[in-house]
């Protein structure tokens, strides 16, 4: 008797929990279906069609992909621009924010104040900072050239020249490295003080402490920032759109900028979908690659415990 009652009660609870559970997560379940899974299927299909929104999609097989990969020179240009930007900005950004974080981790008076100073640029809205940097980098009246001039260095045309436009955007992105700095700082503060004390007793100098203790223990954070940075670069859009429009001579024609133009300016939804799917595949592959290779160079504390 008791067992049966127990089972019935269990079963009633089970069904109630299931129904209530789905009621609670209903918004996100619907959201996933309407705004993620459905559109993913649709854009995958679009990528094999010629589709200009006003007419219905016409199936053309893998033409979009073939055309992009073989004959569309702008496609490869945009890939080159994006990769060049990643190669310049990621190492600089990661080293920069790590070094600033190490600086912020020094035990001297007034650190919270300096932390705020370094972090401030990261909270400036993207559009505001794009407008501001357009002016700072103005070849004739900009602050950066003024500083170069005062220091007796040659001035530069920055966004106005194909050679310097992309490095200028890198410079601007470095201004916001306070965001990454905070993450590294958290990582640094998680390193137990006892490790450094043990190192000092063994006679290690600060340089050795940094390379043998700090760096190995901070690699998971470096790794995280690298993955996020890679994904971020492939989505880079707004500064290029506002500041250069992709120019001069397509020098800042980012992948995402091309995708935007194809989809929302020229209404080539098929081509744009193909670009989006290639982007997805590349992001997935890169993430996988970094995760796979991470065992080679990332030190997780848990490994010791095994």
């Amino acid at each position: 008797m008791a067992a049966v009652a127990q089972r019935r009660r269990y079963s009633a609870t089970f069904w109630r929990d299931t129904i209530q559970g789905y009621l609670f997560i209903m918004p996100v379940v619907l959201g996933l279906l309407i705004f993620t899974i459905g559109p993913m299927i649709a854009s995958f299909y679009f990528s094999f069609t010629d589709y200009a929104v006003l007419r219905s999609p016409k199936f053309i097989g893998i033409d979009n992909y073939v055309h992009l990969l073989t004959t569309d020179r702008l496609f490869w240009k945009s890939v080159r621009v994006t990769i060049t930007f990643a190669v310049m900005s990621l190492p600089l950004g990661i080293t920069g924010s790590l070094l600033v974080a190490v600086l912020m981790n020094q035990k001297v008076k007034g650190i919270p104040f300096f932390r705020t100073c370094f972090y401030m640029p990261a909270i400036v809205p993207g559009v505001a900072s794009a407008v501001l940097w357009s002016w700072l980098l103005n070849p004739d009246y900009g602050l950066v050239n003024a500083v170069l001039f005062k220091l007796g260095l040659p001035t530069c045309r920055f966004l106005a020249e194909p050679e310097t436009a992309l490095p200028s955007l890198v410079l601007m992105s470095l201004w916001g490295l306070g965001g990454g700095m905070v993450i590294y700082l958290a990582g640094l503060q998680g390193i137990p003080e006892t490790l450094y004390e043990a190192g000092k007793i063994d006679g290690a100098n600060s340089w050795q402490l940094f390379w043998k203790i700090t760096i190995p223990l901070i690699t998971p954070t470096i790794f995280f920032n690298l993955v996020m940075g890679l994904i971020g670069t492939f989505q880079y859009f707004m500064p290029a759109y506002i500041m250069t429009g992709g120019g001069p001579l397509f020098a800042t024609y980012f992948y995402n900028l091309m995708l935007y133009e194809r989809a929302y300016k020229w209404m080539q939804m098929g081509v744009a979908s193909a670009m989006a799917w290639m982007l997805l595949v590349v992001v997935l592959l890169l993430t996988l690659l970094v995760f796979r290779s991470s065992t080679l160079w990332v030190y997780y504390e848990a490994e010791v415990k095994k």
Partner: protein
Amino acid sequence: MTTRAEARYTSFLYLVRRRPAEAVRVAVTYVLLVVGSFIFLLPLFWLITTALKTRQEIYVFPPQFFPKTFRWANFIEAWNYPNMMFPRWIANSLLISVINLAAVLTTASLCAYGFARIRFPGRDVWFMMVLATLMLPGQVTLIPIYVAFYKIGWLDTFKPLTIPAWFGGGAFNIFLLRQFFMQIPIELEDAAYIDGASRFRIWWQIFLPLSKPALATVAIFTFQGTWNDFFGPLIFLTSTEKFTLALGINLFKGQYSTEVAYMMAIALLMTIPMIVIFFLAQKLMIQSVILSSIKG
């Protein structure tokens, strides 16, 4: 602990006499801190002073550091600039932000409660799928969504910018609230449950009041995200009177690129809410940036 901390902060003169090497280290640190802060704050300083300069003061090379007099009128003139609708655009940005705040706080916390506290088949699969969307580049889904909004006549309305937020409020927000909800002691819930409270009441009367810091964090992120959003308004809005502030600034830059002082004044106006929020909720914001890194 305190004694060690005190020892670290001993006066600089004492350090110079007793431990010169340490003194050098501290001195070098300060030089780097001051120079670095100067470099990082200089552009912001420039934003503020340029917004207060006259036209003549702006177009000189090398530029002046300070304007002769602070020209506050720049703000008023920019605000009322002919053919531009900055007050309207700010109102639009605020309206969209407020709707999104309401949407995200309600639906993300409902979903988070479901994921954190109710056991049912399929829950973990759905949660993994929610997390997976964090890695998904938006472009893959945006094109069909755009087409769909076009077909149902939602383009050039605020609907594409506000309705989707009611569907879960974003994977990261659900994740953050779920983490927080899981730390709330189960006993509290059991007690309410025995008293006959429904799950909905438990969510409303126990979980929400107890999660104010987490909800505040989500609110800040949502406001930041909506206020700063450029891409969404760019593709969904076409008539100028419906623009958001971000789009408006871009329009102004495109049409009156020589009106630098006004441009900086408006960019500063756009930045001020973020600075205010930062100083009000500095701890919360930095903590959540850190939290966002743990999800990786």
